């Protein structure tokens, strides 16, 4: 049973019925006690009034002039136990042994009798108990009947009242149903009952959070589409240059440029994907135990070919034992991006130094290159998505530092850019909370 209306209906009608039944029962019992007292007294009075008559008088009189509704039966017995007088031959009550009131069971139902010994005779006055029950029930019904009569009316009233109470809810449902999936503004709280307001407020809160998440997604998708246009434009042009080439030398030069263009496009796409995966809304807090030294070694090994191709010497000094809690993939992306940036922007034939150490419970990673560096006033800007340093001569995705910052946000770490200690170049410092040595 899931309908509020039906539940209310059953609960309220049931309660009313129970109250009515209880009131009727109580009335019945109290009426019964009063009727018992009253009719017992009547029986006694009849018996006492008969004591003064002789048996003969009674036979002569015929049945006594009593209220026929009271169905009183009178019997007179002599001392031997033979009946002297029976007011109603059809009713045979047994001769009681003791004087006073008694309930007896006979072939014609239960009877209440009053026995009065009177000078050798026994006067016995009886009345069916049935009568008393009927009288009490009649009184009780007088309570119950109106209750029953009012039930259907009450049912209708409840049906209507609940329906009225649900109008704002239905209105809300209609508004929600008619909404487009992109309409995430708050629902109107006007006219909503207090009981439903918490639900509405919770719903509005959810809508607001959804709108925020949608917005972030939309912004990201827009940025991503925008940023993919540039490498795609390059690839389009490079393809056409291949087609337009008039000699083999020109063609092979154009194809080599095209390959670079394709590689760059693929890199932008994979970087975008990495960034999307690191969205704080969609990532649970990572808590695996990651060996940062191993991560640095691995990333350096992976980037060795790129470094070699550019004549960059990659010097790695990663002390073992630096462990952090987090996601191995994300941390790998962090280190790879920092090293990649340093190799690409650090200038051909230069040197990139990577150092990992532990310092007061912090894992400290520094990546230093000898490139043009990043001017102090640009150091905040380059963390934005798709931002590039203005001194950059190298084609980048503009996403590396955005990814790094996102990873560090997830791992409660920090990153800062600084001048290289030996003058020219950029020094990237990353701090991550280190985990204690495992016992």
């Amino acid at each position, binding site marked *: 049973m899931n309908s509020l209306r039906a539940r209310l209906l059953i609960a309220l009608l049931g309660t009313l019925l129970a109250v009515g039944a209880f009131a009727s029962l109580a009335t019945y019992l109290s009426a019964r006690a009063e009727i018992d007292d009253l009719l017992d007294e009547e029986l006694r009075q009849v018996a006492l009034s008969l004591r003064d008559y002789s048996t003969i008088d009674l036979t002569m009189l015929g049945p006594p002039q009593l209220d026929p509704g009271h169905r009183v039966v009178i019997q007179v017995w002599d001392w031997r136990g033979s009946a002297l007088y029976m007011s109603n031959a059809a009713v045979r009550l047994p001769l009681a042994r003791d004087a006073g009131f008694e309930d007896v069971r006979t072939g014609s139902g239960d009877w209440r009798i009053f026995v009065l010994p009177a000078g050798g005779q026994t006067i016995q006055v009886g009345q069916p108990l049935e009568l008393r029950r009927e009288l009490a029930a009649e009184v009780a019904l007088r309570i119950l009947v109106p209750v029953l009569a009012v039930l259907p009316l009450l049912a209708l009233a409840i049906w209507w009242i609940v329906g009225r109470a649900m109008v704002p809810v239905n209105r809300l449902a209609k508004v929600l149903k008619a909404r487009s999936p992109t309409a995430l503004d708050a629902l109107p709280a006007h006219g909503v009952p207090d009981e439903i307001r918490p639900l509405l407020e919770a719903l509005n809160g959810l809508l607001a959070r959804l709108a925020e998440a949608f917005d972030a997604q939309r912004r990201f998708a827009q940025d991503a589409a925008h940023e993919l246009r540039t490498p795609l434009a*390059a690839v389009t*042009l490079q393809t056409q240059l291949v087609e337009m080439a008039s000699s083999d030398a020109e063609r092979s030069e154009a194809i080599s440029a095209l390959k670079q263009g394709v590689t760059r496009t693929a890199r932008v796409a994979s970087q975008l994907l990495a960034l999307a995966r690191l969205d704080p809304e969609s990532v649970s807090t990572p808590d695996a135990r990651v060996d940062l030294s191993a991560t640095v070694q691995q990333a350096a090994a992976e980037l060795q070919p790129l470094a070699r191709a550019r004549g960059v010497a990659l010097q790695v000094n990663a002390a073992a034992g630096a462990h952090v809690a987090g996601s191995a993939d994300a941390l790998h992306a962090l280190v790879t991006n920092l090293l990649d940036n340093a190799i690409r922007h650090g200038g051909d034939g230069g040197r990139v130094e990577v150092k990992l150490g532990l310092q007061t419970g912090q894992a400290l990673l520094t990546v230093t290159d000898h490139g043009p560096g990043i001017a102090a006033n640009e150091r905040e800007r380059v963390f934005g998505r798709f931002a590039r340093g203005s001194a950059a001569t190298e084609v980048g995705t503009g996403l590396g530092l955005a990814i790094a910052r996102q990873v560090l946000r997830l791992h409660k770490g920090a990153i800062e850019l600084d001048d290289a200690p030996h003058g020219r170049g950029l020094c990237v410092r990353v701090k991550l909370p280190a985990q204690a040595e495992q016992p």
Partner: protein
Amino acid sequence: MRLLLVEDDAMIGSSLVKGLGRENYTVDWVRDGPQAEAALDLAPYRAVLLDLGLPRGDGLTLLGRMRARHDPTPVLIITARDGLSDRVKGLDAGADDYLVKPFDFEELSARLRALLRRASGRAEPVIRYGALTLNPLTREVSCRGAQVALAPKEYKLLAALLDKPGAVLSRAQLEDRLYGWDEPIGSNAVEVHLHHLRAKLGEGIVCNIRGQGYKVADVE
């Protein structure tokens, strides 16, 4: 035809320089706002290809400054910004056309031709003047109905002279239109090319106005 390309992306820039070079344009390529300003000050350009997102200075700012000093050089915006408002803003800022990346080289080339045609006040794509016909699309030249095969530099010279038919261009002006920054110019290179051009076209088509320069004659 000398063009200025303002584009910060190395791959797109080098591809455009190559592609436009094949179409006999002389292209100077700069990568940021200040460089573009400097280039515009130094040389006359027939058109500017302008990227909007530039390091140190936005393309629209540059365009605004050009128009503020009444520089009428046609500007074709090439950008990744594809929003309606961006396009409207670009055109309202004084751009003559707007092309969204990624674009096809052929389309860029066609738009560029249309831009140059409009800038020189012509309606038809083929340039006719006197006995000469020059088709910028096919780069075919004919003189008195006969096709003439020209070397790229000769074609560029003729195209420059036919840009405003009948106008006299000095040797320095012709040099400016023919050569980009990074091309070495021999002391009499223009004369050499002019000599070949005049020989190929025949007498009386390209005239030397003593002390002033050269022009194309309006002869039948």
